[in-house]
């Protein structure tokens, strides 16, 4: 890491590490009677480690001048490995909480180990830890290749990656200590939220500055999606997390909005975190790695444009479908439903564009598990966006809402689409990054593929069953006109499905472990004598200023 930085860059990295120590020190002192203090101490410790590493290697040789004319892939390498570690950790926690619903006594008589505190550890770990690192890592890689330019900065990519991971660690440790803002998928408290805003601004500036260096006249589709991801997530994050802390020494804050306005803001955020984090960003991934792996150009440029602007415009209206039949005014519910249904058009345009790109390369899909991951991802993307539009219809939602059906739907998207496209992208990317001829083992990729697919199918089918049974039981009437089942009857009916779900989740987790092992072994493989040339080099027209 440090060997790739010039002395000037090393000293600016030292200033930034010093800032981190100062910020952490402030939190540690102000929050000394609170969990906040522990998080401050953690930041001080992280900053100190960085400072120490930078100081001890400050006078090492500077990188060769020519290396400045190459793509800068160290941050991407870091992001890929860290994303896989987050995946293994967070799917493990997910499977753990799934088993807690089967064996509710399996807590350790302590707060940190109960379902309510561990569940956000799982969701934050997979969405932000795994998904976020995967997006940042691949976006840096795609941005440079499609712009034929080196990243506009050597320190700022590390600020983004290290800062983002510190945010994730503050989030998941905070939940276990009982620090949460309780807004789903926006649980971190005010100080972590502010920290993320700074990191995100650095990410955006880096992205736009690199685009400004591009040697291709057009900005490639994948970058449209990555830009929408960065921009809209910033807007959502800032507005939904507006809050007043109890004091500067308290981790706890009270959200600015309350009741119905808060509910609408939260689900405007929640649904668009799905849209711009889990859809837009990963479509960016798909638009680059799928055509590369298939060796075929994207089927339709026109469809790309329609689906991009369709998704960017329509999703922002759809959040209110999470609030059907609630105290939210009817007109907002109706708007949400209407736009959710229209959303199937741009969503299917993307899925169709991906599948039609593969049309003519089906023998590759059959033989190559990496490409098959991306194919299955596109299929699950199509299925879960259709399912989402369907569930947004008010009468359907009256059955599905509050049940496991929603959980099944989310996992069809998260496991089937988000994770599968990432695995396909990573298995394409890892040999390129480390200049290996291929992945360590194609049989392990094959094993990962079947574990991931069977795990996802078992998971989703068990949740479809349990969710629909729950929904039907809650609304069933006996002949005498009273409700036919008590709530506990519906809980009892879930037992077999909770077991099946935990088994499916375990298979998926196992696949992730194999994936991490395979990537690790690839990194450890000796470099090939004749490594293939994967990319056209960046075009260098001006000497970088440093």
């Amino acid at each position: 890491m440090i060997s790739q930085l010039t002395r000037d860059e090393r000293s600016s990295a030292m200033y930034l590490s010093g800032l981190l120590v100062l910020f952490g020190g402030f939190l540690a002192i102000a929050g000394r009677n609170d969990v906040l203090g522990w998080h401050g101490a953690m930041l001080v410790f992280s900053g100190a480690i960085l400072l120490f590493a930078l100081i001890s290697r400050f006078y090492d040789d500077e990188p060769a001048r020519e290396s400045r004319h190459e793509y800068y892939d160290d941050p991407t390498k870091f992001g890929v490995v860290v994303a896989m570690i987050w995946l293994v950790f967070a799917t493990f926690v997910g499977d753990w909480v799934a088993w807690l619903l089967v064996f509710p006594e399996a807590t350790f008589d302590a707060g940190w180990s109960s379902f309510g505190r561990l569940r956000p550890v799982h969701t934050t770990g997979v969405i932000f830890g795994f998904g976020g690192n995967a997006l940042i890592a691949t976006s840096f890689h795609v941005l440079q290749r499609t712009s034929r330019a080196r990243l506009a900065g050597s320190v700022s990519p590390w600020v983004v990656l290290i800062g983002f991971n510190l945010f994730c660690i503050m989030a998941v440790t905070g939940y276990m200590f009982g620090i949460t803002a309780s807004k789903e998928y926006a649980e971190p408290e005010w100080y972590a939220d502010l920290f993320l805003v700074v990191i995100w601004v650095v990410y955006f500036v880096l992205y736009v500055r690199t685009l400004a260096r591009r040697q291709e006249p057009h900005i490639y589709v994948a970058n449209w999606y990555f830009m929408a991801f960065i921009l809209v997530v910033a807007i959502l994050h800032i507005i939904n997390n507006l809050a007043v802390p109890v004091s500067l020494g308290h981790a706890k804050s009270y959200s600015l909005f309350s009741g119905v306005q808060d509910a609408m803001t939260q689900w405007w955020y929640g649904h668009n975190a799905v849209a711009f984090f889990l859809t837009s960003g990963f479509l960016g991934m798909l638009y680059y790695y799928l055509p590369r792996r298939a060796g075929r150009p994207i089927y339709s440029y026109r469809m790309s444009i329609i689906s991009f602007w369709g998704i960017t415009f329509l999703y922002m209206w759809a959040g209110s479908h999470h609030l059907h039949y609630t105290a939210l005014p009817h007109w907002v519910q109706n708007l949400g439903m209407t736009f959710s249904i229209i959303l199937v058009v741009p969503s299917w345009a993307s899925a169709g564009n991906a599948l039609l790109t593969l049309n003519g390369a089906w023998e590759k899909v059959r033989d190559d598990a990496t490409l098959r991951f991306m194919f299955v991802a596109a299929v699950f993307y199509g299925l879960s966006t259709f399912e989402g539009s369907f569930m947004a219809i008010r009468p359907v939602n009256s059955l599905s809402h509050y049940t496991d059906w929603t959980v099944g739907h989310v996992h069809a998207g998260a496991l089937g689409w988000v994770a599968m496209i990432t695995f396909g992208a990573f298995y394409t990317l890892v040999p390129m990054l480390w200049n290996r001829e291929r992945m360590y083992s194609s049989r392990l990729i094959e094993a990962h593929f079947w574990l991931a697919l069977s795990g996802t199918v078992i998971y989703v089918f068990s949740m479809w069953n349990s969710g629909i049974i729950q929904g039907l039981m809650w609304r069933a009437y006996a002949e005498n006109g009273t409700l036919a089942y008590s709530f506990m009857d519906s809980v009892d009916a879930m037992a077999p499905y909770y077991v099946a779900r935990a088994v499916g989740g375990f298979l998926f987790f196992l696949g992730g472990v194999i994936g991490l092992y395979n990537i690790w072994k690839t990194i450890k493989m000796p470099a090939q004598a004749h490594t293939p040339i994967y990319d056209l080099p960046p075009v260098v027209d001006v000497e970088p200023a440093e």
Partner: protein
Amino acid sequence: MLDKHAKLERNALAFVFAIIFVASIGGIVEIAPLFTIDETVEEVEDMRVYTPLEVAGRNIYIREGCYACHSQMIRTLQDEVERYGPYSLAVESQYDHPMLWGSKRTGPDLARVGEKFSDAWHVAHLINPRNVVPSSVMPSYAWLMRNTLKYEDMGLHLSALRKVGVPYSDEMIENAAQDTYGQARPGSERADAFVERYGEESNVSLFDGDPDRITEMDALVAYLQILGRLTDVAHQSSDSAQQTTSTGSGD
């Protein structure tokens, strides 16, 4: 059209602004009017604020992630109204910063659980849910009974809540810690002062049954017992037959 887009694709900043513009419309149209249209939240006379002990209990409810499995929003569906009580009105969560409507019912809705069960039932249930509901899948919260409640700083909490719009008086903020104690100690002087500030309807009780300490159990039970009881307006409108949608499947 495609030509114009080809132009846009060449200009990064124009593209950035186009994304911000296109993505902002939905939120502006759907969210902004919720703050300005008066009918969004009903106006009622008898709406109360949470007492300091209830705020502390609510914070424990949040801390433990209870909302991950319990909703607090009864929908306008006939079976829900029959199972849980009158459907939830917007005003009932007017002082909920943040709202806890929830999105999942692994356990039942809690919007109207207040005063449905005794304090003793809640304590027994939280210590081990399976002691009172044999096939429950809820975790045990026995350690709430062992944790002493931290309430010296409740004044700061009420003052932060006032900043975001909850009408606490100066007197309430000043006496927040004493009132926390008073609500959990019936018969004490502080209990009388507490009732004077928060009204006769407020709930003074020895929630966890332990007269020696104020525990986190006290706070959480106090919160659970106020759910759905901050105002009676939902019950009044149910007399005039709530308009619900019937989805019943059995006949």
